[in-house]
């Protein structure tokens, strides 16, 4: 079975969620691939994983308004969350605000959203940024929306654990404040990663290839997860899984 890049990424991210200490994963706004990954991990785990998708009402049990995501994380009830970044540096600092010297920016992006809080409170934050380039992965971010590490006098139960791009998977060591390459996606090379990364990171002696989804997983993704994620992200589902509006309408009527 051929597998689209999005399907590959969903499958790998789902694998990262399949850990004994992860009982509840939350997914922020405008995150279709993380959302699909969370639903796939839930499916593969037999429903053990709680999934909250903060975008619309499907797969979203929150009833206490916009602050519930943050309160819930502060209570220690969210084990995994996804964050991205316009820039990400070698200490896992992320920038969602802009490039240039703040406040005199050259490029302005939407803003930090809840990153400065979720990064501190959720134990397994997965950084997901498909574009793997020196524009994104810089030596030092221009603006720290959320810092990768904190001094010991700041209470911080959470932080970055993994970084997933179109080229590879990395792990973050909070004690050392450094990324380590975990695996290289099929069709890509260590050299390509080094060429496109602006920060230094640890490279083990032997780096395996990232495991592609099995045929069984792809079937589940396309048959079970695709219509489910279409409830939240119809445009994405239509583009990646060819889930049409008619199917969506059917799904909405039977749920």
């Amino acid at each position: 079975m051929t597998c689209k890049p999005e399907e590959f990424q969903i499958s790998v991210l789902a694998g990262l969620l399949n850990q004994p200490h992860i009982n509840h994963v939350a997914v922020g706004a405008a995150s279709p691939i993380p959302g699909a990954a969370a639903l796939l991990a839930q499916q593969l785990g037999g429903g053990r994983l709680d999934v909250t998708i903060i975008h619309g009402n499907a797969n979203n049990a929150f009833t206490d308004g916009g602050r519930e995501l943050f309160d819930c994380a502060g209570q220690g009830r969210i084990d995994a969350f996804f964050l991205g970044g316009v820039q990400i540096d070698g200490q896992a600092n992320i920038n969602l605000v802009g490039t240039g010297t703040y406040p005199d920016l050259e490029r302005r992006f939407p803003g930090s959203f809840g990153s400065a809080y979720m990064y501190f409170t959720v134990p397994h934050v997965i950084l997901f940024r498909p574009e793997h380039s020196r524009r994104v992965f810089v030596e030092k971010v221009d603006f720290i929306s959320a810092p990768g590490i904190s001094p010991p006098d700041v209470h911080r139960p959470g932080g970055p654990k993994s970084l997933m791009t179109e080229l590879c998977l990395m792990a973050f060591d909070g004690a050392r404040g450094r990324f380590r390459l975990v695996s290289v996606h099929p069709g890509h090379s260590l050299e390509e990663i080094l060429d496109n990364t602006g920060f230094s990171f640890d490279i083990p002696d032997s780096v395996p290839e990232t495991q592609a989804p099995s045929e069984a997983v792809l079937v589940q993704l396309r048959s079970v997860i695709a219509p489910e994620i279409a409830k939240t992200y119809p445009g994405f589902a239509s583009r990646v899984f060819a889930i049409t509006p008619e199917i969506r309408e059917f799904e909405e009527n039977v749920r």
Partner: protein
Amino acid sequence: MAEIQDINALADRIPDGAHLALPPEYSFVPMQLVRCLIRRQARELRILCVPLGGLAVDMLIGAGCVAEIEAAAVSLGENGLAPRFTDAVLSHRVSMKDSTCPALHTALQAAEKGVPFMPLGGIIGSDIAANRPDWRIVDDPMGQGNGRILLIPAIRPDFAILHSPLADRNGNVWIGRRRELVTMAHAAKQTLVTVESFTDTDLLADEKTAAGTLPALYVTALAEAVGGARPLALTGCYERDDGAIAAYAQVARTDAGFADYLARTVGAHAPEAAE
């Protein structure tokens, strides 16, 4: 007693320079009221996004109504960057107070509770905190060795504005599970509400509807506005008009395109408004 009036009279309650809290982009945004503000050429507004801004803020900025924005982020969501916001911030035509979602919720909770500040975990070490002289990082004031913590000052906006599917004749407003709108109204000095329709049934009389109702006690005035959140979504009433917002995202990239959009969708006064 909450007053029910015409939407233009409602807009006229908001003076130039007012500090205005707005719901996030996905629902309950009073777009029709925003268009009224643009038509009457409101000026120097200070906009508080609770916690995110989108089309409404972008249009207000483009129309020259805004002096300051405080938000965790401003964008058109799936339709990309908010063009007027981006342009105005880069050229320093509006003052941007960058925040983060839970800090905005916390600031309103502090005002709701009538305390001058409230603590919030995390955030220390970010450049958000570094650029907010009004925030304060202190050593554990409980003296229990819990380390440093961030204190967020209360925000008490002059007005909270929102658009709801339904209110009753007493001025009680259906909010549903969007409880941040309740906190926003509690925190604001005045709350102005537009609704799709009014019902003769007291929303507080039934325990089911009461649970999702903002009492009239917190509502200054209301106006009917059918389709009042369009082209944005309104829970249970209509979906987001993706095509219209995509078209806006396209044309609003240029001053001329935006002025033309305003003239077409807001009315004749628009071109002058976009100074």
